[in-house]
Protein backbone atom coordinates (compact mmCIF):
# COMPACT_ATOMS: atom_id res chain seq x y z
CA UNK A 1 0.00 0.00 0.00
CA UNK A 2 2.18 2.82 -1.19
CA UNK A 3 -0.81 5.08 -1.67
CA UNK A 4 -2.87 6.47 1.17
CA UNK A 5 -6.37 5.14 1.54
CA UNK A 6 -8.90 7.40 -0.09
CA UNK A 7 -12.28 8.17 1.33
CA UNK A 8 -15.13 6.82 -0.67
CA UNK A 9 -16.56 10.28 -1.50
CA UNK A 10 -13.16 11.24 -2.95
CA UNK A 11 -13.23 8.17 -5.12
CA UNK A 12 -16.70 9.01 -6.36
CA UNK A 13 -15.60 12.57 -7.06
CA UNK A 14 -12.64 11.28 -9.02
CA UNK A 15 -14.99 9.09 -11.03
CA UNK A 16 -17.23 12.08 -11.79
CA UNK A 17 -14.18 14.17 -12.71
CA UNK A 18 -13.24 11.54 -15.27
CA UNK A 19 -16.73 11.72 -16.79
CA UNK A 20 -16.53 15.52 -16.98
CA UNK A 21 -13.09 15.25 -18.53
CA UNK A 22 -14.54 13.05 -21.28
CA UNK A 23 -17.44 15.44 -21.92
CA UNK A 24 -15.15 18.46 -22.07
CA UNK A 25 -12.68 16.89 -24.45
CA UNK A 26 -15.49 16.13 -26.89
CA UNK A 27 -17.21 19.52 -26.61
CA UNK A 28 -16.60 22.20 -29.22
CA UNK A 29 -18.12 24.91 -27.01
CA UNK A 30 -18.01 25.62 -23.28
CA UNK A 31 -20.39 23.47 -21.24
CA UNK A 32 -22.32 24.91 -18.32
CA UNK A 33 -22.39 23.19 -14.94
CA UNK A 34 -26.01 22.22 -15.58
CA UNK A 35 -25.22 20.74 -18.96
CA UNK A 36 -22.34 18.79 -17.45
CA UNK A 37 -24.51 17.59 -14.58
CA UNK A 38 -27.25 16.45 -16.91
CA UNK A 39 -24.87 14.62 -19.21
CA UNK A 40 -23.01 13.03 -16.30
CA UNK A 41 -26.32 12.18 -14.65
CA UNK A 42 -25.15 13.73 -11.41
CA UNK A 43 -25.86 16.69 -9.11
CA UNK A 44 -24.66 20.18 -10.07
CA UNK A 45 -23.46 20.53 -6.47
CA UNK A 46 -21.12 17.61 -7.03
CA UNK A 47 -20.06 18.76 -10.50
CA UNK A 48 -18.50 21.94 -9.13
CA UNK A 49 -15.98 20.28 -6.79
CA UNK A 50 -15.21 17.79 -9.55
CA UNK A 51 -14.48 20.71 -11.86
CA UNK A 52 -12.16 22.18 -9.23
CA UNK A 53 -10.35 18.85 -9.16
CA UNK A 54 -9.97 18.99 -12.94
CA UNK A 55 -8.89 22.63 -12.72
CA UNK A 56 -5.99 21.63 -10.49
CA UNK A 57 -5.00 18.87 -12.86
CA UNK A 58 -5.39 20.89 -16.07
CA UNK A 59 -3.63 24.12 -15.20
CA UNK A 60 -1.09 26.33 -16.92
CA UNK A 61 2.48 25.10 -16.53
CA UNK A 62 1.24 21.74 -15.35
CA UNK A 63 -0.47 20.41 -18.45
CA UNK A 64 -0.69 21.05 -22.17
CA UNK A 65 -4.44 21.16 -21.74
CA UNK A 66 -5.94 23.86 -19.54
CA UNK A 67 -9.42 24.00 -18.08
CA UNK A 68 -10.94 27.46 -18.21
CA UNK A 69 -14.18 29.10 -17.16
CA UNK A 70 -15.25 31.06 -20.21
CA UNK A 71 -18.41 32.18 -21.99
CA UNK A 72 -20.62 30.99 -19.16
CA UNK A 73 -19.23 27.48 -19.13
CA UNK A 74 -16.23 25.26 -18.82
CA UNK A 75 -13.90 24.31 -21.65
CA UNK A 76 -10.54 22.85 -22.41
CA UNK A 77 -8.01 24.82 -24.37
CA UNK A 78 -4.33 24.56 -25.16
CA UNK A 79 -1.96 25.99 -22.59
CA UNK A 80 -0.46 29.35 -23.42
CA UNK A 81 3.00 27.81 -23.48
CA UNK A 82 2.00 25.73 -26.48
CA UNK A 83 0.54 28.63 -28.46
CA UNK A 84 3.46 28.71 -30.90
CA UNK A 85 3.12 25.04 -31.76
CA UNK A 86 -0.64 25.46 -32.13
CA UNK A 87 -0.17 28.49 -34.35
CA UNK A 88 2.05 26.51 -36.71
CA UNK A 89 -0.70 23.97 -37.30
CA UNK A 90 -4.00 25.78 -36.68
CA UNK A 91 -5.77 28.86 -37.93
CA UNK A 92 -8.04 31.05 -35.84
CA UNK A 93 -10.45 32.45 -38.40
CA UNK A 94 -12.68 34.15 -35.84
CA UNK A 95 -10.07 36.64 -34.73
CA UNK A 96 -7.60 36.84 -37.61
CA UNK A 97 -7.09 40.34 -39.04
CA UNK A 98 -9.92 42.07 -37.24
CA UNK A 99 -9.93 45.59 -38.70
CA UNK A 100 -10.33 48.68 -36.52
CA UNK A 101 -13.78 49.17 -38.05
CA UNK A 102 -14.76 45.60 -37.15
CA UNK A 103 -13.45 46.01 -33.59
CA UNK A 104 -15.39 49.24 -33.22
CA UNK A 105 -18.57 47.61 -34.47
CA UNK A 106 -17.95 44.62 -32.22
CA UNK A 107 -17.51 46.96 -29.26
CA UNK A 108 -20.79 48.71 -30.01
CA UNK A 109 -22.67 45.42 -30.29
CA UNK A 110 -21.04 44.08 -27.13
CA UNK A 111 -21.86 47.18 -25.08
CA UNK A 112 -25.21 48.23 -26.49
CA UNK A 113 -26.55 45.03 -28.08
CA UNK A 114 -28.87 43.80 -29.20
CA UNK A 115 -28.68 46.62 -31.71
CA UNK A 116 -29.36 47.09 -35.41
CA UNK A 117 -27.14 48.24 -38.22
CA UNK A 118 -28.73 51.72 -38.22
CA UNK A 119 -27.98 51.92 -34.48
CA UNK A 120 -24.35 51.09 -35.14
CA UNK A 121 -24.11 53.53 -38.05
CA UNK A 122 -25.55 56.26 -35.85
CA UNK A 123 -22.87 55.78 -33.24
CA UNK A 124 -19.92 55.21 -35.56
CA UNK A 125 -20.90 57.84 -38.07
CA UNK A 126 -20.20 55.45 -40.93
CA UNK A 127 -22.22 52.66 -42.43
CA UNK A 128 -21.77 49.36 -40.63
CA UNK A 129 -23.04 46.94 -43.25
CA UNK A 130 -19.79 45.35 -44.30
CA UNK A 131 -18.36 45.27 -40.77
CA UNK A 132 -21.53 43.60 -39.49
CA UNK A 133 -21.53 41.04 -42.31
CA UNK A 134 -17.89 40.31 -41.60
CA UNK A 135 -18.49 39.79 -37.89
CA UNK A 136 -21.49 37.55 -38.56
CA UNK A 137 -19.38 35.46 -40.89
CA UNK A 138 -16.72 35.09 -38.23
CA UNK A 139 -19.38 33.99 -35.77
CA UNK A 140 -18.61 36.78 -33.31
CA UNK A 141 -22.08 38.32 -33.57
CA UNK A 142 -25.42 36.82 -34.55
CA UNK A 143 -28.93 37.94 -35.32
CA UNK A 144 -31.14 38.45 -32.30
CA UNK A 145 -34.65 39.36 -33.40
CA UNK A 146 -35.79 42.66 -34.91
CA UNK A 147 -36.47 46.20 -33.80
CA UNK A 148 -39.90 46.45 -32.27
CA UNK A 149 -41.07 48.99 -34.85
CA UNK A 150 -42.97 47.58 -37.82
CA UNK A 151 -40.53 46.31 -40.45
CA UNK A 152 -37.84 46.75 -37.84
CA UNK A 153 -34.19 46.21 -38.71
CA UNK A 154 -32.46 43.00 -37.70
CA UNK A 155 -30.72 43.32 -34.37
CA UNK A 156 -27.43 41.72 -33.45
CA UNK A 157 -25.80 40.53 -30.27
CA UNK A 158 -22.44 38.99 -29.52
CA UNK A 159 -22.14 35.20 -29.48
CA UNK A 160 -20.59 32.86 -26.89
CA UNK A 161 -17.73 32.56 -29.37
CA UNK A 162 -17.06 36.28 -28.88
CA UNK A 163 -16.72 35.74 -25.14
CA UNK A 164 -14.51 32.77 -25.76
CA UNK A 165 -12.21 34.50 -28.21
CA UNK A 166 -11.79 37.43 -25.87
CA UNK A 167 -11.49 35.19 -22.82
CA UNK A 168 -14.54 36.58 -21.02
CA UNK A 169 -16.62 34.62 -18.54
CA UNK A 170 -19.55 36.76 -19.58
CA UNK A 171 -20.33 40.17 -21.06
CA UNK A 172 -20.49 41.62 -17.56
CA UNK A 173 -16.73 41.20 -17.47
CA UNK A 174 -16.39 44.00 -20.04
CA UNK A 175 -14.89 47.04 -18.30
CA UNK A 176 -17.03 50.04 -17.50
CA UNK A 177 -16.15 52.79 -19.89
CA UNK A 178 -15.02 56.19 -18.72
CA UNK A 179 -17.10 59.02 -20.03
CA UNK A 180 -15.73 61.12 -22.82
CA UNK A 181 -13.57 62.99 -20.31
CA UNK A 182 -10.11 61.61 -20.86
CA UNK A 183 -10.48 61.35 -24.58
CA UNK A 184 -11.85 64.86 -24.97
CA UNK A 185 -9.09 66.23 -22.78
CA UNK A 186 -6.50 64.55 -24.94
CA UNK A 187 -7.94 66.11 -28.09
CA UNK A 188 -8.10 69.52 -26.47
CA UNK A 189 -4.48 69.14 -25.37
CA UNK A 190 -3.47 68.27 -28.89
CA UNK A 191 -5.19 71.35 -30.23
CA UNK A 192 -3.48 73.49 -27.58
CA UNK A 193 -0.11 72.14 -28.59
CA UNK A 194 -0.90 73.05 -32.18
CA UNK A 195 -1.98 76.53 -31.16
CA UNK A 196 1.08 77.11 -28.97
CA UNK A 197 3.39 76.02 -31.74
CA UNK A 198 1.77 78.56 -33.96
CA UNK A 199 1.89 81.43 -31.55
CA UNK A 200 5.48 80.69 -30.66
Amino acid at each position, binding site marked *: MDRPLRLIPGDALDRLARTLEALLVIASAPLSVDELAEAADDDPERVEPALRLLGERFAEERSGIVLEHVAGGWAFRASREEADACARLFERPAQRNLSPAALETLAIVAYTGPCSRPDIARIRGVAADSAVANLVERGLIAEAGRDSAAGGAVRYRTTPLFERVFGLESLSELPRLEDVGADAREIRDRLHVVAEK*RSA
Partner: protein
Amino acid sequence: MSGGAGFAGGGAGVSVQELELDLDAFEGPFDLLLALVLKEELDLRDVDLAGIVTAFLERLAEREELDLEACGEFLVLIAALLELKARALFPDETAELAELEPEEAAEELARRLAEYRRAKEAAVWLRDRLAGEGDRFFRLGPAPLAPKVETPLAPQDPDALARMLRALAQEPPDVSLAHMALRFPPVSQFLERFRSVLRGRTRFDFDTEVGGLNRLEQASAFLAVLELRRAGELTLEQAAPFAPIRVKRATLEASPAKPAAPGQKTAAPAAPPWQENTAQEERNDSWTVRSA
Protein backbone atom coordinates in the same frame (compact mmCIF):
# COMPACT_ATOMS: atom_id res chain seq x y z
CA MET B 1 -7.60 80.13 -34.60
CA SER B 2 -7.41 83.90 -34.99
CA GLY B 3 -4.29 84.21 -37.01
CA GLY B 4 -1.87 86.59 -35.47
CA ALA B 5 0.18 89.10 -37.39
CA GLY B 6 2.86 87.62 -39.53
CA PHE B 7 1.01 84.52 -40.37
CA ALA B 8 -0.66 85.87 -43.43
CA GLY B 9 1.24 86.02 -46.63
CA GLY B 10 2.75 83.74 -49.21
CA GLY B 11 5.25 80.96 -48.90
CA ALA B 12 4.63 77.28 -49.34
CA GLY B 13 1.10 77.02 -47.94
CA VAL B 14 -0.91 73.92 -47.23
CA SER B 15 -2.58 72.67 -50.36
CA VAL B 16 -5.94 71.28 -49.41
CA GLN B 17 -6.16 69.40 -52.69
CA GLU B 18 -2.87 67.65 -52.12
CA LEU B 19 -3.58 66.82 -48.51
CA GLU B 20 -2.60 63.16 -48.21
CA LEU B 21 -5.19 61.09 -46.38
CA ASP B 22 -4.84 57.67 -44.78
CA LEU B 23 -8.32 56.63 -43.71
CA ASP B 24 -10.08 53.27 -43.35
CA ALA B 25 -12.15 53.81 -46.44
CA PHE B 26 -9.79 55.91 -48.46
CA GLU B 27 -6.10 56.49 -48.97
CA GLY B 28 -4.80 59.27 -51.25
CA PRO B 29 -5.03 62.98 -51.86
CA PHE B 30 -8.03 64.97 -50.69
CA ASP B 31 -9.06 66.13 -54.17
CA LEU B 32 -9.28 62.55 -55.38
CA LEU B 33 -11.54 61.80 -52.42
CA LEU B 34 -13.73 64.76 -53.36
CA ALA B 35 -13.90 63.64 -56.97
CA LEU B 36 -14.87 60.12 -55.97
CA VAL B 37 -17.54 61.35 -53.58
CA LEU B 38 -19.04 63.70 -56.14
CA LYS B 39 -19.07 60.97 -58.77
CA GLU B 40 -20.72 58.79 -56.13
CA GLU B 41 -18.02 56.18 -56.50
CA LEU B 42 -17.24 56.41 -52.82
CA ASP B 43 -19.95 56.29 -50.18
CA LEU B 44 -19.47 59.26 -47.92
CA ARG B 45 -20.95 57.24 -45.09
CA ASP B 46 -17.82 55.10 -45.15
CA VAL B 47 -15.49 58.06 -44.85
CA ASP B 48 -14.12 59.17 -41.48
CA LEU B 49 -14.40 62.94 -41.76
CA ALA B 50 -12.85 63.49 -38.35
CA GLY B 51 -9.78 61.74 -39.71
CA ILE B 52 -9.58 64.27 -42.51
CA VAL B 53 -9.84 67.16 -40.07
CA THR B 54 -7.12 65.66 -37.88
CA ALA B 55 -4.86 65.09 -40.86
CA PHE B 56 -5.39 68.66 -42.01
CA LEU B 57 -4.67 70.08 -38.56
CA GLU B 58 -1.53 68.02 -38.22
CA ARG B 59 -0.36 69.16 -41.62
CA LEU B 60 -1.04 72.75 -40.55
CA ALA B 61 0.99 72.24 -37.39
CA GLU B 62 3.99 71.13 -39.42
CA ARG B 63 4.03 74.55 -41.14
CA GLU B 64 5.46 77.63 -39.59
CA GLU B 65 2.76 79.83 -40.96
CA LEU B 66 -0.98 79.68 -41.15
CA ASP B 67 -2.38 79.46 -44.66
CA LEU B 68 -5.69 81.26 -44.24
CA GLU B 69 -6.74 80.65 -47.79
CA ALA B 70 -6.21 76.95 -47.40
CA CYS B 71 -8.02 76.98 -44.05
CA GLY B 72 -10.99 78.78 -45.56
CA GLU B 73 -11.14 76.40 -48.47
CA PHE B 74 -10.87 73.44 -46.18
CA LEU B 75 -13.63 74.72 -43.90
CA VAL B 76 -15.97 75.14 -46.84
CA LEU B 77 -15.21 71.73 -48.24
CA ILE B 78 -15.34 69.85 -44.96
CA ALA B 79 -18.57 71.59 -43.94
CA ALA B 80 -20.13 70.56 -47.21
CA LEU B 81 -18.95 67.03 -46.78
CA LEU B 82 -20.27 66.99 -43.22
CA GLU B 83 -23.67 68.12 -44.31
CA LEU B 84 -23.76 65.59 -47.15
CA LYS B 85 -22.76 62.85 -44.80
CA ALA B 86 -25.22 63.91 -42.15
CA ARG B 87 -28.02 63.81 -44.69
CA ALA B 88 -26.89 60.40 -45.87
CA LEU B 89 -26.67 59.00 -42.35
CA PHE B 90 -29.81 60.45 -40.87
CA PRO B 91 -32.26 61.01 -43.70
CA ASP B 92 -35.22 60.79 -41.31
CA GLU B 93 -33.77 62.87 -38.53
CA THR B 94 -33.05 66.13 -40.29
CA ALA B 95 -36.41 67.44 -39.19
CA GLU B 96 -35.97 66.09 -35.71
CA LEU B 97 -32.71 67.94 -35.17
CA ALA B 98 -33.96 71.07 -36.89
CA GLU B 99 -36.87 71.26 -34.46
CA LEU B 100 -34.51 71.42 -31.53
CA GLU B 101 -33.27 74.64 -30.07
CA PRO B 102 -29.63 75.29 -30.96
CA GLU B 103 -28.55 74.41 -27.43
CA GLU B 104 -30.53 71.20 -27.43
CA ALA B 105 -29.18 70.29 -30.82
CA ALA B 106 -25.65 70.85 -29.56
CA GLU B 107 -26.40 68.67 -26.57
CA GLU B 108 -27.77 65.95 -28.79
CA LEU B 109 -24.69 66.11 -30.97
CA ALA B 110 -22.47 66.04 -27.91
CA ARG B 111 -24.33 63.00 -26.63
CA ARG B 112 -23.72 61.19 -29.89
CA LEU B 113 -20.10 62.22 -29.90
CA ALA B 114 -19.69 60.88 -26.41
CA GLU B 115 -21.29 57.63 -27.44
CA TYR B 116 -18.90 57.37 -30.32
CA ARG B 117 -15.91 58.06 -28.10
CA ARG B 118 -17.01 55.31 -25.77
CA ALA B 119 -17.31 52.92 -28.70
CA LYS B 120 -13.81 53.89 -29.78
CA GLU B 121 -12.54 53.31 -26.28
CA ALA B 122 -14.25 49.94 -26.08
CA ALA B 123 -12.75 48.97 -29.42
CA VAL B 124 -9.30 49.77 -28.09
CA TRP B 125 -9.97 47.67 -25.01
CA LEU B 126 -11.08 44.78 -27.19
CA ARG B 127 -7.98 45.12 -29.35
CA ASP B 128 -5.71 45.03 -26.31
CA ARG B 129 -7.66 42.15 -24.84
CA LEU B 130 -7.29 40.19 -28.06
CA ALA B 131 -3.57 40.86 -28.04
CA GLY B 132 -3.40 39.53 -24.47
CA GLU B 133 -5.59 36.51 -25.10
CA GLY B 134 -4.13 35.73 -28.52
CA ASP B 135 -2.18 32.75 -27.26
CA ARG B 136 -5.27 30.84 -26.18
CA PHE B 137 -6.04 28.07 -28.64
CA PHE B 138 -9.22 26.08 -28.30
CA ARG B 139 -11.36 23.71 -30.27
CA LEU B 140 -14.04 25.15 -32.50
CA GLY B 141 -16.95 23.30 -34.03
CA PRO B 142 -19.30 24.49 -36.71
CA ALA B 143 -22.33 23.79 -34.53
CA PRO B 144 -21.48 23.79 -30.84
CA LEU B 145 -24.35 21.65 -29.61
CA ALA B 146 -27.25 20.10 -31.38
CA PRO B 147 -30.48 21.78 -30.38
CA LYS B 148 -32.45 19.74 -27.94
CA VAL B 149 -35.19 17.91 -29.75
CA GLU B 150 -38.59 18.71 -28.30
CA THR B 151 -40.52 15.51 -28.24
CA PRO B 152 -43.82 16.13 -30.03
CA LEU B 153 -45.54 13.17 -28.36
CA ALA B 154 -48.24 13.63 -25.79
CA PRO B 155 -47.37 12.21 -22.38
CA GLN B 156 -47.36 8.45 -22.63
CA ASP B 157 -48.45 5.80 -20.15
CA PRO B 158 -45.52 3.41 -19.66
CA ASP B 159 -47.85 0.73 -18.31
CA ALA B 160 -49.86 0.77 -21.52
CA LEU B 161 -46.65 0.39 -23.51
CA ALA B 162 -45.59 -2.50 -21.28
CA ARG B 163 -48.95 -4.20 -21.80
CA MET B 164 -48.64 -3.90 -25.56
CA LEU B 165 -45.10 -5.19 -25.51
CA ARG B 166 -46.06 -8.09 -23.31
CA ALA B 167 -48.81 -9.07 -25.75
CA LEU B 168 -46.38 -8.83 -28.63
CA ALA B 169 -43.70 -10.77 -26.79
CA GLN B 170 -45.89 -13.83 -26.32
CA GLU B 171 -45.07 -16.92 -28.35
CA PRO B 172 -47.76 -17.40 -30.98
CA PRO B 173 -49.56 -20.81 -30.88
CA ASP B 174 -47.91 -23.47 -33.00
CA VAL B 175 -49.52 -23.71 -36.39
CA SER B 176 -50.49 -27.30 -37.20
CA LEU B 177 -48.49 -28.67 -40.08
CA ALA B 178 -50.08 -32.09 -39.79
CA HIS B 179 -51.96 -31.79 -43.07
CA MET B 180 -48.74 -31.18 -44.95
CA ALA B 181 -47.30 -34.48 -43.80
CA LEU B 182 -50.53 -36.42 -44.39
CA ARG B 183 -49.46 -39.65 -46.06
CA PHE B 184 -51.36 -42.72 -46.88
CA PRO B 185 -49.77 -45.88 -45.60
CA PRO B 186 -48.69 -48.00 -48.57
CA VAL B 187 -51.47 -50.02 -50.11
CA SER B 188 -49.03 -52.89 -50.63
CA GLN B 189 -48.89 -53.41 -46.86
CA PHE B 190 -52.62 -54.22 -46.87
CA LEU B 191 -52.37 -56.37 -50.01
CA GLU B 192 -50.06 -58.69 -48.13
CA ARG B 193 -52.10 -58.53 -44.98
CA PHE B 194 -55.39 -59.42 -46.65
CA ARG B 195 -53.73 -62.18 -48.69
CA SER B 196 -52.43 -63.77 -45.51
CA VAL B 197 -55.82 -63.41 -43.80
CA LEU B 198 -57.49 -65.11 -46.75
CA ARG B 199 -54.91 -67.89 -46.63
CA GLY B 200 -56.18 -68.76 -43.14
CA ARG B 201 -59.88 -68.07 -43.64
CA THR B 202 -62.10 -68.01 -46.66
CA ARG B 203 -63.91 -64.88 -45.69
CA PHE B 204 -63.77 -61.92 -43.31
CA ASP B 205 -65.70 -58.84 -42.43
CA PHE B 206 -63.89 -55.74 -43.72
CA ASP B 207 -65.14 -53.38 -41.01
CA THR B 208 -64.06 -55.76 -38.26
CA GLU B 209 -60.67 -56.31 -39.85
CA VAL B 210 -59.84 -52.60 -40.07
CA GLY B 211 -61.76 -51.61 -36.94
CA GLY B 212 -58.66 -50.65 -34.95
CA LEU B 213 -57.10 -48.52 -37.70
CA ASN B 214 -57.36 -44.78 -38.30
CA ARG B 215 -59.15 -43.24 -41.23
CA LEU B 216 -56.11 -43.03 -43.49
CA GLU B 217 -55.19 -46.63 -42.86
CA GLN B 218 -58.77 -47.69 -43.44
CA ALA B 219 -58.75 -45.83 -46.75
CA SER B 220 -55.53 -47.58 -47.82
CA ALA B 221 -56.94 -50.87 -46.69
CA PHE B 222 -60.07 -50.31 -48.77
CA LEU B 223 -57.93 -49.50 -51.83
CA ALA B 224 -56.05 -52.78 -51.21
CA VAL B 225 -59.33 -54.70 -51.11
CA LEU B 226 -60.44 -53.11 -54.41
CA GLU B 227 -57.04 -53.92 -55.88
CA LEU B 228 -57.28 -57.58 -54.86
CA ARG B 229 -60.78 -57.84 -56.24
CA ARG B 230 -59.63 -56.40 -59.56
CA ALA B 231 -56.89 -59.00 -59.67
CA GLY B 232 -59.59 -61.58 -58.99
CA GLU B 233 -58.14 -62.77 -55.66
CA LEU B 234 -61.33 -62.14 -53.75
CA THR B 235 -64.94 -61.15 -54.12
CA LEU B 236 -66.87 -58.50 -52.29
CA GLU B 237 -70.40 -58.43 -51.02
CA GLN B 238 -72.38 -55.65 -49.53
CA ALA B 239 -76.04 -56.05 -48.84
CA ALA B 240 -76.91 -52.39 -48.95
CA PRO B 241 -75.12 -49.03 -48.98
CA PHE B 242 -73.21 -48.58 -45.66
CA ALA B 243 -73.91 -52.20 -44.78
CA PRO B 244 -70.91 -54.28 -43.66
CA ILE B 245 -68.59 -55.30 -46.49
CA ARG B 246 -67.92 -59.00 -46.64
CA VAL B 247 -64.72 -60.17 -48.20
CA LYS B 248 -64.52 -63.73 -49.61
CA ARG B 249 -61.56 -65.66 -51.03
CA ALA B 250 -61.96 -66.13 -54.74
CA THR B 251 -62.67 -69.66 -55.68
CA LEU B 252 -60.54 -69.48 -58.83
CA GLU B 253 -57.04 -70.50 -57.88
CA ALA B 254 -55.36 -69.68 -61.16
CA SER B 255 -54.94 -66.03 -60.53
CA PRO B 256 -51.97 -64.20 -62.06
CA ALA B 257 -51.47 -62.22 -58.91
CA LYS B 258 -50.87 -65.36 -56.94
CA PRO B 259 -47.08 -65.65 -57.40
CA ALA B 260 -46.46 -62.12 -56.29
CA ALA B 261 -44.38 -62.40 -53.16
CA PRO B 262 -43.65 -59.60 -50.69
CA GLY B 263 -40.75 -57.40 -51.77
CA GLN B 264 -40.63 -59.04 -55.14
CA LYS B 265 -43.47 -57.50 -57.01
CA THR B 266 -42.43 -58.15 -60.55
CA ALA B 267 -45.91 -59.15 -61.53
CA ALA B 268 -47.72 -56.26 -59.99
CA PRO B 269 -51.20 -55.81 -61.28
CA ALA B 270 -51.77 -53.21 -63.93
CA ALA B 271 -52.37 -49.78 -62.60
CA PRO B 272 -55.97 -49.05 -61.75
CA PRO B 273 -57.74 -46.73 -64.18
CA TRP B 274 -57.60 -43.77 -61.80
CA GLN B 275 -53.84 -43.96 -61.54
CA GLU B 276 -52.97 -43.25 -65.13
CA ASN B 277 -49.82 -44.99 -66.38
CA THR B 278 -47.35 -44.41 -63.62
CA ALA B 279 -45.79 -47.33 -61.84
CA GLN B 280 -47.94 -48.52 -59.02
CA GLU B 281 -45.17 -49.11 -56.51
CA GLU B 282 -44.08 -45.50 -56.47
CA ARG B 283 -47.58 -44.35 -56.05
CA ASN B 284 -48.21 -46.68 -53.22
CA ASP B 285 -45.27 -45.33 -51.36
CA SER B 286 -45.92 -41.70 -51.95
CA TRP B 287 -49.61 -41.11 -51.94
CA THR B 288 -50.60 -37.98 -50.29
CA VAL B 289 -53.92 -36.42 -49.74
CA ARG B 290 -53.41 -34.29 -52.80
CA SER B 291 -52.54 -37.09 -55.15
CA ALA B 292 -55.33 -39.19 -53.74
